[in-house]
């Protein structure tokens, strides 16, 4: 009885509902916009891709359900295992190189007293280049003949490298491109995190006689732990989807050394005309990435609480 009374007292009159709706109309309007965008450009493609991975289609007639046949096809492909190994290696190398460098650059920028704005602009500049342009720029840098990198190596009397043309250096060459292209974004995010650290902590550490390295280890890293973790997970999700670098620089070669999962997916869909196979690969990758995304959401939620 008590409960019913309480419910009854909370029941709003139609007029109040109308007023509430009117008051929040702007919010609902913007929400609808976002929902439609997400619905059509993110969720709908995901659902289509999920269905596609169990179908055989030519986009003309009705699709045929083939169960797990697409998955069997791609798993039996000789390039399948290689693509996952390469993707894992790329992600690992991108974490070692591409994760650490922006953090170090941010710390250096944060410590600078002069030309801060200019250097921030210089660091962020590569992000403003269209990715295809940036990648093609590196195609010239990596040219084993007149390329910039080998010219530099020759100038300092070091042996030149084959860069993209060698199975041992091709993948790491792609990581370098990716690191350079994304350096600016990572650095700016770290810089923002560093600037939110109270200066009193550094002053106290300095008074205690802590060196720069000890200040970084005992103040900077603990204070930016969350952002470091979030960036780590986001970077794993992003780098596992690497495509443009192998597509434009190596075409998956030499000897499949740079075939990645997304590149193989592209091959299936657009070169082989097997959209079901491409969909199956996409679904597998999506499941792997969902694990990392779930960790990311958990980390974010833990921090909020």
């Amino acid at each position, binding site marked *: 009885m008590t409960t019913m009374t309480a419910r009854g007292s909370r029941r709003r009159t139609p007029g109040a509902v109308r007023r509430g709706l009117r008051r929040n109309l702007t919010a609902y309007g913007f929400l609808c916009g976002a929902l*439609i965008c997400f619905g059509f450009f993110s969720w709908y493609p995901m659902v289509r891709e999920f269905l596609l991975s169990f179908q055989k289609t030519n986009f003309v007639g009705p699709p045929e359900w083939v169960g797990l046949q697409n998955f069997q096809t791609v798993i039996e492909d000789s390039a399948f295992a290689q693509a996952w190994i390469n993707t894992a290696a790329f992600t690992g190398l991108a974490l070692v190189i591409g994760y650490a460098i922006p953090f170090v650059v941010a710390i250096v920028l944060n410590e600078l007293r002069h030309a801060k704005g200019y250097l921030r602009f210089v660091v962020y500049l590569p992000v403003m280049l269209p990715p295809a342009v940036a990648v093609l720029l590196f195609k010239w840098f990596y040219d084993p003949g007149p390329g910039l990198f080998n010219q530099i190596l020759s100038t300092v009397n070091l042996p030149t490298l084959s860069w993209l*043309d060698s*199975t041992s250096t091709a993948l790491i060459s792609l990581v370098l491109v990716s690191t350079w292209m994304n350096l600016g974004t990572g650095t700016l995010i770290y810089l923002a995190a560093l600037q939110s650290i109270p200066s009193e902590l550094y002053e106290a550490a300095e008074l205690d006689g802590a060196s720069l390295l000890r200040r970084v280890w005992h103040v900077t890293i603990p204070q930016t732990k969350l952002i470091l973790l979030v960036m780590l997970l986001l970077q794993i999700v992003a780098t596992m989807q690497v495509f443009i670098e192998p597509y434009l620089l190596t075409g998956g*070669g030499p*000897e499949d050394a740079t075939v990645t999962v997304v590149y193989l997916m592209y091959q299936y869909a657009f070169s082989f005309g097997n959209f079901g196979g491409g969909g199956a690969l996409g679904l597998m990758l999506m499941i792997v990435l969902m694990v990392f995304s779930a960790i990311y959401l958990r980390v974010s939620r833990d921090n909020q609480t």
Partner: protein
Amino acid sequence: MKPRNLAILLSAGLAFAAAGCGSDSGSTQSGASPSGSAAGAAAPVTISVGCQPPKSNPKERAQWDADVAEFQKANPTVTVKGNDAFPCIVPETFQAKLAGGDMDDVFYVYYTDVRKIIQAGQAADISPYLSEVPALANIRPDVMSVFKDGEKVYGLPRTNYSTGLVYNRKLFTQAGLDPDAPPKTWAEVQEAAKKIAGLGAGYVGFGEYSAGNTGGWHFTSSLYGRGGEVVSPDGKTAAFNSPQGKAVLENLKTMRWTNDSMGTKQLLRWEDLMRMMGSGKLGMMIGAPDVVKEVNNTFKGKFEDYGVAGLPEATASLSGGDGYMFNPKATPDQIKAGLKWLEFKFLTPGKGQFNYERAKNDGLPVGLPDTDLFGSTEPGAKVQELRKQFATVPVEHFQPYVDANANVQFKLEPPKAQEIYAILDTAMSAVLTRQDANVDQLLADAEKKANNVLARSS
């Protein structure tokens, strides 16, 4: 604008846009009767046709428009709606157009995609309507076989050529070679490549693809030239692990590592070799006269600097070219109208693409032996005569190619071509990037992989 109004407008706009995206416009319709011939020839019909020259190519576009006007005057019930695009076909948009219902009624294809499209059921069977194309009787049977699956026909060719050896005449002269006597054997190619590479840093004697499936494509071309096969006659097993296949890779390995005549940069794809050829630093590559046209039109080369010879030692050649196929959703009337248009525009000597007099007057290059659709039939002789009469490019530079190809047999791409090309890319990139590459092992590995692909498809 108030934020509330802005939000409503934004949502409404997105909803309309999304609704527009979702609608299936289907094939271009214009009152065409779906029942086809029952409605009679007088029923008005509109066809959308791909590969209209883009506005950035005003002369060829004006020619297209003039041809459309002439065709429509002769066929008043047909309206031809050209859709321009450059390049004319992009794999990424092809499937999207088909899925979205935006595919042209008469769409453009490269030979390399034809088999895949037929196998996927993405083109209409035009066999019942071929009586509309009298010119068909004169088209080379080996060319028509590109568009056939069994007895069914799925398209018509626009251009056709066999692969040869494209070479830079200027570099030949600089290297002390005779540009009028291009190499006829692979041993001669090796010698010429060495001399050209010896001109100095940056000069490449012979260039070859090895990435993005183009390596496998050219491996097939070379293999066919040497008399080899990619798959067995029943199409069930790989056949490239053969003395001919080995010779293809060994030849490249020798040029790359022993002779150092292929440059240091590898993993090259189509546009890479075009750029190198256009820059004047590349001596030779496997290609057809269309390469010279592309290098001249897009990559700043000059017609007079290039020549084309036959593929060394070749008795057979992988056929190349392009053509048109029909949207499976096109109505019979649209297919008939499309066939009439294709015959007028691309298969009639003196008209459309063979109106060499007009091309010459417009300042466009004439004289390249870039298409051979009719062989030695009467229309074939007529096309050759007109081409010679109105030639603006030095035709003698391409005569070795014409002479060498007189008896070359055209061969089709293997089944599962792109999958096999991707596998063969590995072997091609290996011999060009790794000095210790084991050719036997590479071919054995590729054979195993190709057999898996073929077994899955059969």
